[in-house]
């Protein structure tokens, strides 16, 4: 029976059926569920959350050198972090098959940019495969492992949000056990000292030629002939959009193996049609290469390279089709941005921080990025993971050197700190910085849907493991002023901030309280106790000052007619931040007093 799977689930299944025995990843939407699903094959595959993507790729590479089939998965920007090993992996090749899944996010559904990672394959001189749906996600992974070993090349398996997170019917197969390749030392291949690297480069160029020959013959690149003068070269999810728009009224060259491109096949296809379109999402990756090869085609001059595509965008761009829609009344739409949840431990901290004057706040990526939004407005910059601490350090040095009296606070989540923030904090300590660094430890990787990390004490497969002690860690780095606080206690937070500002030298504040949505572990129950009763507004005491709404808690609303605040008991978890914010003691715990 067919299964209804997301692309991510299908990739996991494909890895299982290919006999993979090692997989590592760092979470990141839309890639996260790949490793989560691989982890379900507990008996057959070692699955691990790595602290960052570079580590994930390197450990998968190690497993490949050891002779096993391995996989690393990450979101598109994660490949930037893993780029260093990636480029040299392009030279060395592999032993056991190695697949790097890159999940790109056209449209920036949950990302800071919409880079097109197919360019990485070309740049790092490795093979690129692009599935269009869930069935292909499974089938192509299997072919990816075959190619990886046949051509001694790592494969960049490029997915996009709509392939990762759309479900379709999938025919599963069975697992083929992969016999580990016996280990032999291969210093000329795996020690990339300059003398060897120089020798490897021509080998890579030769490999690319062989891969191009394969590309011209593989079933991954297939032609669908119909009775039409239009030809369409397309890949990934864009193929499904093209099929919706053109149906049988065009011929298709569907590219599943997009680097190296099957240039001979494309030329032949182009020669047999009158009009040639290239329909690809994001950048003109195929189009540029086709044009360099003298193939005339219509692509990005008509189809946008900004945002994600859909069938209508293509119908409009290429056929001038106008879709009839009903009227929309903008006055009946109010924005619904994501917010920190009711009871989120980040709220108490940001509420208190937002009151500080004369500070620059460098932020980072995670749920706490929402501390930048109204009404907290407590973050000034967010760029990439780990950057808060290093950018803050540079800014503080620049302020000091140029006589500017502004203090810098850098805020970073627990998972993000271990991802790359830790290097930045070493920089701060080593170069005698003077920033206030706050590790927002909510005991989980929340933003991406609650993954375990080295600070939580559990592995991806749910087994207890070593737990990082942040205090000891930052002290070992050389930070002298370290304090841990409960972020829901506003006076504790305030004192910690003031003490840190008054301390001459870099400091670390660790806020420690579990994410409001976290399922408590036994350790959490012991440390953080039972969840307390909810809060409510005592209407007689409420003066209608609205200060409690400044906490930005989604369970608090203000009744304009009554001029009173109201706490929705269905949402409140009793964190007491609003209770502490109220200057008139008008918020109390339900059942107390």
């Amino acid at each position, binding site marked *: 029976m067919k299964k209804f799977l997301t692309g991510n689930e299908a990739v996991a299944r494909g890895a299982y059926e290919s006999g993979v025995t090692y997989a590592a990843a760092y979470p990141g939407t839309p890639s996260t569920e790949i490793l989560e699903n691989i982890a379900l094959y507990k008996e057959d595959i070692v699955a691990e959350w790595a602290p960052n993507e570079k580590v994930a790729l390197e450990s998968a590479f190690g497993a490949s050198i050891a002779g096993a089939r391995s996989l690393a998965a990450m979101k598109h920007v994660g490949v930037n972090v893993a780029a260093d090993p990636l480029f040299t992996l392009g030279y060395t090749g592999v032993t056991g098959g190695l697949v790097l899944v890159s999940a790109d996010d056209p449209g920036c*559904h949950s990302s800071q940019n919409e880079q097109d990672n197919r360019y990485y394959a070309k740049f790092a001189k490795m093979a690129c495969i692009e599935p269009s749906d869930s069935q292909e996600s499974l089938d192509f992974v299997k072919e990816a492992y075959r190619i990886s070993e046949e051509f001694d090349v790592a494969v960049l398996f490029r997915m996009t949000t709509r392939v990762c997170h759309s479900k379709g019917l999938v025919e599963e197969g069975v697992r083929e056990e992969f016999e580990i390749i016996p280990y032999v030392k291969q210093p000329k291949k795996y020690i990339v000292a300059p003398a060897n690297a120089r020798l490897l480069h021509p080998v890579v160029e030769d490999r690319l030629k062989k891969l191009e020959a394969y590309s011209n013959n593989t079933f991954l690149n297939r032609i669908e002939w119909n009775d039409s003068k239009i030809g369409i070269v397309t890949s990934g999810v864009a193929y*499904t959009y093209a099929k919706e728009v053109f149906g049988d009224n065009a011929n298709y060259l569907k590219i599943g193996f997009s680097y190296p491109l099957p240039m001979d096949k494309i030329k032949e296809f182009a020669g047999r049609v009158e009009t040639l379109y290239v329909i690809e999402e994001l950048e003109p990756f195929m189009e540029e290469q086709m044009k360099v090869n003298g193939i005339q085609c219509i692509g990005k001059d008509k189809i946008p390279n900004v945002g994600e595509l859909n069938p*209508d965008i293509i119908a409009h761009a290429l056929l001038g089709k106008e879709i009839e*829609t009903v009227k*929309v009344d903008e006055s009946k739409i109010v924005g619904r941005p994501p*917010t920190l949840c009711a009871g989120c431990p980040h709220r108490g901290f940001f509420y208190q921080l937002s009151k500080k004057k004369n500070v620059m706040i460098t932020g980072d990526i995670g749920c706490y990025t929402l501390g930048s939004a*109204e009404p907290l407005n407590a973050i000034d910059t967010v760029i990439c993971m780990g950057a808060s601490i290093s950018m803050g350090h540079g800014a503080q040095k620049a302020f000091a050197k140029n006589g500017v009296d502004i203090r810098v606070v850098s805020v970073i989540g627990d998972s993000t700190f271990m991802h790359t923030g830790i290097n930045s904090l070493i920089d701060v300590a080593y170069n005698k910085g003077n920033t206030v660094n706050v590790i927002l430890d909510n005991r989980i990787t929340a*933003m991406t849907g609650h993954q375990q990390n080295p600070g939580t004490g559990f592995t991806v497969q749910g087994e207890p493991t070593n737990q990082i002690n942040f205090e000891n860690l930052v002290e070992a780095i050389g930070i002298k002023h370290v304090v841990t606080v409960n972020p829901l206690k506003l006076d504790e937070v305030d004192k910690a901030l003031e003490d840190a500002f008054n301390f001459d030298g870099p400091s670390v504040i660790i806020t420690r309280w579990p994410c409001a949505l976290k399922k408590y572990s036994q350790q959490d129950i012991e440390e953080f106790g039972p969840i307390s009763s909810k809060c409510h507004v005592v209407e007689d005491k409420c003066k209608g000052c609205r200060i409690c709404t400044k906490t930005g808690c*989604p369970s608090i609303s203000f009744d304009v007619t009554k001029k009173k605040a109201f706490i929705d008991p269905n949402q409140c978890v009793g964190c007491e931040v609003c209770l502490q914010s109220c200057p008139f003691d008008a918020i109390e715990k339900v059942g107390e007093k």
Partner: protein
Amino acid sequence: MAEVKNILLSGVGGQGIILASKILATGLINAGYDVKMSEVHGMAQRGGSVTTQVRFGDKVYSPIIGKGQADILVSFETMETSRWLDFVKPDGKVVINDYRLASAPILIGTSNYPEGVIEFVKEQIDDTIVLNAAELANKLGNIKTMNVIIVGALIKALELEEIDWDQVIKETVKAKFVDMNIEALKLGMNQVK
């Protein structure tokens, strides 16, 4: 050949839209359709606006649709209907849950919850069905059945009652909630004439 039908579900993170679409998709698959379903994860749990799309027919290629393409828009929250209204075909249908969830700008008082949404939608789309699933769910004794009640209305609006939905509920929800959800589904179906 069955023409591909497009369903757009909209609402707010935490309203159970993912389960609702799962129930729907399972029923359609059991009935022998090709089905594609698209959801966007990520910010969904943080109270943001959420949609999923379900497409079914003999052969479905694209997992998503653009504006003016939905045969039916099912909105779990009133204001969200306005946000996604232009995705509905002008001769399509709308199912609105008469249920308000204030978003952040409304909570902090920089905007007001828009009035007249339902009336406006009715002016645009003749075939608009309004139900109060929260009230019905409370009558059933569990507010959490709201999403399944809405699925019931959707099933009826799309004339898919022939499918064995009791079986689908058994496949998709925990054993101890099966009876309640079967009842919820029926309740939702009865809301549509």
